[in-house]
């Protein structure tokens, strides 16, 4: 993978980390509820794990599929999926539902996984993943045997992405918890969902153009 690819993966990770709905706000709430920073810090790894799982499923699937199928098919399918999902997110008023705030680490991971999946966090990485030449390209291209190697690259991409996400989420959570206070939510909680949906659609268009 090129430097630009890594930067793009990390950049999208930072974008995801910034979104209050992806977990840092939950971590802040835990810290405030228990009145200790340790509770905030303890909440973030499970949240990152859930995000990683959600993104990794998509990344591994795409990378592995690309190794054995013609790139164009994957790109077109992925692009159409992205545009459709993005438009649905943009136009639908429905929001994620989850009752319950006293979660174990495992439940917190599950919450984060579902939250990321429902928001299409993994899908957003499609254009970056597809911009790379398939791992299996070469003598073994198109062979089923190339799939595991492709999946591994995908997992690695997801890990880099999640590391950036966790870093930003940690920084924002601590900033709000220690310095700004939750009052900042009233002013600064920009409607990320709309921007997010726009990014999904744009990513889909980029993917489709790349396939053309």
């Amino acid at each position, binding site marked *: 993978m090129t430097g630009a690819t890594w930067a793009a993966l990390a950049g999208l990770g930072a974008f995801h980390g910034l979104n*209050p*709905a992806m977990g840092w*706000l*939950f971590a*802040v*709430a835990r810290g*405030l*509820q228990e*009145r200790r920073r340790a509770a905030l810090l303890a909440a973030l790894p499970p949240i990152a794990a859930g995000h990683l799982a959600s993104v990794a499923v998509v990344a591994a699937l795409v990378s592995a599929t690309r190794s054995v199928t013609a790139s164009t098919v994957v790109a077109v399918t992925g692009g159409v999926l992205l545009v459709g999902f993005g438009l649905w997110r943009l136009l639908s*008023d*429905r*929001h*994620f*539902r*989850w*009752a*319950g*705030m*006293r979660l174990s680490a495992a439940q917190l991971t599950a*919450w984060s996984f579902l939250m990321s999946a429902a928001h299409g966090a993994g899908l957003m990485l499609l254009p970056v993943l597809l911009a790379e030449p398939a791992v299996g390209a070469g003598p073994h291209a198109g062979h089923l045997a190339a799939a595991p190697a492709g999946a591994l690259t995908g997992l690695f991409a997801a890990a880099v992405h999640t590391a950036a996400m966790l870093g930003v989420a940690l920084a924002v959570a601590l900033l709000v918890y220690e310095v700004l206070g*939750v*009052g900042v*939510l*009233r*002013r600064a*909680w*920009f*409607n990320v*969902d*709309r921007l997010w949906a726009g990014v999904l659609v744009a990513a889909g268009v980029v993917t489709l153009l790349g396939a053309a």
Partner: protein
Amino acid sequence: MTRWTPDPTFYPSPTLAAAAPAEKLAYVAAFDRAGQRPDAIAVLDTDPDSDSYGRVVGWTELPNTGDELHHFGWNACSSALCPTAPHPHVERRYLIVPGLRSSRIHVLDTKPDPRRPSLVKVIEAEELGKRAGYSRPHTVHCGPDGIYVSALGGSDGQEGPGGIAVLDHTTFEVRGAWEADRGPQFLAYDFWWHYTQDVLVTSEWGTPSMIEDGIVGELLLGRRYGHAIHFWDLAKRRHVQRVDLGDQYQMPLELRPAHDPTKSYGFVGVVISVEDLSASIWLWHRDGDTWAVTKVIDIPAEPADPADLPDLLKPFGAVPPLVTDIDLSVDDRFLHVSCWGTGELIRYDVSDPFHPVRVGSVRLGGIVNRTPHPAFPDEPLAGGPQMVEISRDGRRVYVSNSLYGSWDDQFYPDGVGAWVAKLDVDPESGGLVPDPRFFPRGEEFRGLRVHQTRLQGGDASSDSYCFP
């Protein structure tokens, strides 16, 4: 369509909400006891700088008759900021208005013209019954994952169990009954929660046949009305614990949990003790791994000449306080208690919830006293302070005077009338003073009776907060 920045009426914490600007309008449920004319939402001007301050400035009639509007609530509130399912860019603009007698639920839009809310949807009784198995919808609370509506009765003419139905935030369709396992719970009335602790609390009144034709003396003396509160796992939707107050304590109604999400206590008002007609306020709190209740306030009955009493009370020679609503200020410091029978609103400092201190009282109406408003001393008042609502900053308290159609008729047989009073908190004494400029009454309400008040932008019993 959603907003770009959070609705400005949403506050992450009760402390921040207490700094909210003063409300400009109040919405009041008004109903026709005879069921001949449509019920309405009356809009009151609460802006002291306005020419029409203290007057009815808007009136939205419902399409049917016989609904008996009672309690109602906002579609969305500060709980939208809760981190599990945040949706801060929706708007607080719809009033969810149940008809307690008709079982219809109305959705009114306050945005196009806040002084003239417009009807946008009616959920018919059949839909509530078919989807959730309930009737007689009562309390409305805006949850992070849906709109919760308690209901007193079952569907298809069944008496019960009553419970909670959940409505979709966006479409207002009935999603279904909330309970996954209701355990021994059968009677229903009010509910609220300690949201961040995954705890929901419910209280008990009676089934439709126990209340709709008036209070039934035999049932009351037979201690058959509700006398317990229930604790539930809010995440699993399962019954956890039933706490019995003792069967002499009939009708624990309004539930007011601390707004501070780190606190694990709340207050519940009991209408009447069948042993001495007193009313009481109980505190629920944790006791190890379980929940417990402690009686923290006793309000005795007042002796009276039987000749001054309605038939129902003549044999007792006393006026029961009939505590039928209570409200806790957003900062959790002051509890306001409506004594609808004796005609008194009492204010307690509950900074130490186990040891309330009485700090103020206002007398208006009352079965025997008929105390007039100080600004209109020649008008004896019927009814008493009943539904009580507090502004978010805790400086203004609004009270209305009807309890429930058929019960009004029993306790105020010569007519309960209709009035809404505003009480200002005296910054010096901490007590309450009626505002001489704010007393809409009688014909202003066009012959209808007035029940719950909701304040524009939220009030002390609308919002729940996920951050301390």
